[in-house]
């Protein structure tokens, strides 16, 4: 049995899930990004040699670090919001407010991390 969706891609992209839907999508992207990164990082450390050094050079690039930090920090902070709401279901009525709080926590922490990465990369 194949996978059958009753909505087109165009309709799916217009889905009005708003804030919570955006966090759902970013959580998956962040999780997948970390899974790929961690797998390659572990394998590079295990294999070593030229391949390991090549991959480590990519990890140490500031642009890659900004991407990985986004994946890790967003996944961690959004995951904390999900965990709190799931373990205390009575709070689910405040879902949208919780998402706003989540952004209020994520943006300063991620912004500071990006600032530090960039100033370090630029020799500051």
């Amino acid at each position, binding site marked *: *049995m194949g996978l059958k969706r009753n909505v087109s891609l165009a309709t799916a992209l217009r889905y009005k899930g708003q804030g919570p839907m955006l966090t759902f999508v970013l959580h998956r992207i962040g999780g997948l990004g970390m*899974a790929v990164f961690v797998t390659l990082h572990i*394998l590079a*450390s295990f294999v070593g040699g030229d391949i390991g050094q090549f991959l480590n050079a990519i990890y140490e690039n500031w642009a890659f670090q900004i991407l990985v930090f986004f994946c890790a920090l967003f996944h*961690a902070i959004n995951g904390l919001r999900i965990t709190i709401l*799931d373990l205390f279901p009575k709070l689910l009525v405040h879902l949208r407010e919780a998402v706003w709080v989540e952004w209020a926590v994520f943006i300063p922490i991620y912004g500071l991390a990006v600032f*530090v990465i960039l100033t370090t990369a630029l020799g500051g």
Partner: protein
Amino acid sequence: MAEKSKTLPLSKRGLNFEMFMWLVTRLTALAMYALILFAIIGALVMGARNQMNLADVLRWGFMPNSTHVQSTDVPDLAPWSTSLWRLAGSALVLVATAHGVHGLVAIADDYIVSPRGRGIVRFISIVFMLAMMGIGIYILWTS
């Protein structure tokens, strides 16, 4: 009038395998927060405030492996490579791999719906999870 909760308590939902893994995902997430917080506090106690920047501290927090502080101003790696940190790193590898692989299976289930396909994904996931746990812990204790 307060909105009535649409959720059921755990006792009325039953604890099958899917429910168990749902709970494991949340509990492993909490365990990771605790381990990351432990690593960050440990880093601050060991002098990170004057020797590392925020990004370096977070990198150590996500995986307390001494190779993650090699490029910082930390003068001596010995306190950062004790058995305590190797144990903390090993615990983080175990819970993060279990959490991550289950997350990948959950995503795959959204796109692979045949029982045979899901069975293959589960088999590959279990092999992948055990391999990553073994290699990760090996690296932590030999680096």
